[in-house]
């Protein structure tokens, strides 16, 4: 005797027929279940974006640097001629040195002052939140606007800073803020520090807040003073965050453009030209696109080394 099949009705066999849309749904399910396909699908928008906005301009830039392309003229392959010409160019050499000088000192100041500010803001005081929020203002204001304000403050004729210093008896003659090459470079470093310090401070503050207060308490009980607590407790734990923020800052400062363009235009006599501003002058203003691209590509190996050192160091820290 045949036993009724479970689910059967009156002993009759009921066969579940496939729904018309089921085959397609199963195909979709299989597709979605395939990790490789799904991953490709999800990554596709990012790949397209990166390809369009990073890879294509980069490859295009490399091609330009190897060609004699100028504005309105089709370029021909010239090998490394543009790089050789730039290396032999005294303005390029000056811009190259300036870029290192500017990046080095601006990063040092941003780190030192940012750390100091972060340590202050990590304390409890009335109005802490308001101070923390307002500290970000230099970082929020568009660089061009804030640099214009600084430019007016450093104006060779109408500088409010000179006026203030003169009125208070600190100076007899005007300080040539932007009209002297050395002063001009330090003014640019000051503005960059003013603008970039909040980024350091807020990032380091976030790092400080992850440090367990018990560690400081324990160190205090062991008789450690403020400096010892910072050096032996805070600093080692803050090192990974510091390293990341320093590397980001080096990349941004090394390729800085807006600030110099607005503040000094690279002058006087190229004393404040950076690689980015000189590349712009040669490539965009003069129209020598190939030479401009070669100048800007000189930044690549330097930044590559910086990132490589950072990744290597972070890996070592993780392994420790």
């Amino acid at each position, binding site marked *: 005797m045949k036993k009724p099949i479970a689910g059967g009705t009156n002993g009759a066999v009921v066969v579940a027929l496939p729904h018309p849309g089921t085959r397609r749904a199963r195909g979709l399910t299989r597709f979605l279940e395939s990790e490789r396909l799904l991953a490709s699908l999800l990554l596709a928008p990012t790949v397209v974006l990166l390809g369009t906005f990073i890879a294509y301009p980069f490859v295009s830039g490399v091609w330009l640097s190897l060609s004699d392309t100028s504005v309105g003229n089709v370029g021909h392959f010239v090998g490394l001629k543009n790089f050789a010409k730039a290396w032999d160019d005294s303005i390029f050499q000056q811009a190259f040195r300036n870029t290192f000088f500017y990046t080095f000192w601006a990063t040092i100041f941003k780190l030192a002052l940012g750390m100091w500010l972060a340590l202050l803001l990590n304390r409890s005081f009335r109005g802490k939140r308001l101070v923390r929020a307002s500290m970000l203002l230099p970082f929020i204001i568009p660089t061009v606007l804030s640099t214009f304000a600084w430019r007016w403050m450093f104006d060779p004729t109408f500088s409010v800073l000179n006026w203030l210093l003169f009125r208070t008896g600190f100076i007899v003659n005007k300080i040539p803020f932007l*009209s002297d090459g050395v002063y001009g470079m330090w003014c640019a470093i000051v503005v960059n520090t003013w603008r970039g310090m909040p980024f350091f401070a807020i990032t380091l503050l976030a790092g400080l807040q992850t440090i367990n207060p018990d560690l400081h308490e324990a160190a205090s009980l062991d008789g450690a003073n403020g400096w010892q607590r910072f050096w032996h407790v805070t600093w080692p734990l803050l090192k990974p965050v510091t390293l990341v923020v320093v590397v980001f800052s080096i990349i941004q400062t090394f390729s800085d453009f807006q600030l110099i363009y607005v503040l000094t*235009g690279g002058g006087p006599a190229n004393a404040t030209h950076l690689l980015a501003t000189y590349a712009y002058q040669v490539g965009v*203003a003069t129209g020598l696109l190939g030479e401009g691209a070669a100048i800007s590509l000189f930044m690549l190996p330097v930044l590559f080394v910086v990132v490589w050192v950072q990744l290597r160091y972070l890996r070592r820290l993780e392994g420790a």
Partner: protein
Amino acid sequence: MDVKSMDRRYFLKITGIAGILAARQAPAFAQGSTLHWVRWVDFIPESDLELKRQMPEAEKALGAKIQFETINANDLQPRITAAVQSGSGADIFNFQYNWPHLYQNAVIDVSEVASALSKAEGGFYEVWAPSCQVNGKWLSVPHSIVGNAVAYRKSWLKEAGASHYPKTWDEARKLFAGLKKKGKPYGQTLGHTFGDAPTFTYPMTWAFGAAETDKSGKKVVLQSKGAVEAVKFMQGFWKECCDEGGLAWDDTNNNRAFHAGEISATLNGASIYIVAKRQKDKIKDEKGEPLFQDIDHAPLPAGPAGGYLLFLNQSHAVMRYSKNPKLAKDFLTWLHKPENYGKWFASQEGYSVGSTHKWENDPMWGKLDEPLKMFRTAARNTRLFGYAGPSTAKATEAFTKYIITDMYAKGVQGMSAEDAVKWAEGELKKVYEA
């Protein structure tokens, strides 16, 4: 015919679609016949207002929409480069100096418009052909020339014992050394800026008998006694006579410094006088009188080799990527019609002179104040950079890199005159002889 009886043919007829289909082309407006025109921000704001006022009239005359945009002069070249490389942007750009040489493959031949204009107005000034003609073709239509002269304070110079503006650089040095001691220095930029810096430094070089290249334009000849003497002179003039903040000035700083009574003289267009007069209630001298009454103009003094001038000549080029080249040319023709151009020209009050001799006889000159009348014939005598060779794209490259200006800037900042000239010679060789 009522709606029910309207057939397909009738419908097409009344909606004009039949015509479009027949022509296989949209009517002018539907083609998106918008013309985009980019010019510098004029130092005489009223002139930009006049052009804006004229645009609806141009639109009506040409049957097209015209978008008029003004940008900072220092941003013109970056904007042109971006437009050319992307193949999109303004149809017409305001060119300066000899830019048609630099952008010769990115613009179209406008000989038709330029030649007609020249013919109608009795010929262009000499400076135009080497500036705008490449291989015998006009690549931009000459528009106007911004003359320059030294604007100075009459009363201050009189107090210092000068009955007239110095004719030579040596006289000028003596005069302004005394004025600087009284806190009334000469104002001059040696910064990276397109107008007031090169229009001073190139003529200074020529005045001492030096030149960038020989007549072929292929051999750099800057390294010379004249160039060294010019830099040496500038070193002394700078220290003894000038506001040393000028190293960081752009083209606007000297205007503001002059209006504020900070400097006694400066090389500029007529805008210092014109703005001071138009804002006479605001811009006053130390006695509270309108400042413009105390301003006069004089040409740059002569050096041992004579006196020379470099003026800012402005033209208009139609870009090769433009989808409306005919419309663009028609617009330039319309712009130069005497009844249109004349209104703009009058608003300049001598700040710019015309591209042809005809405008020297315009009744406007009779109405101008005496200090502005010297600009009337200014355009007759101007040299171009690249001298003694032709003003080619290489000359523009050297100009845009501020090599001549930086030669002086390095000199006044402490580099020896010999080294400054040697540096500039080396940089020029990389441009002209590469």
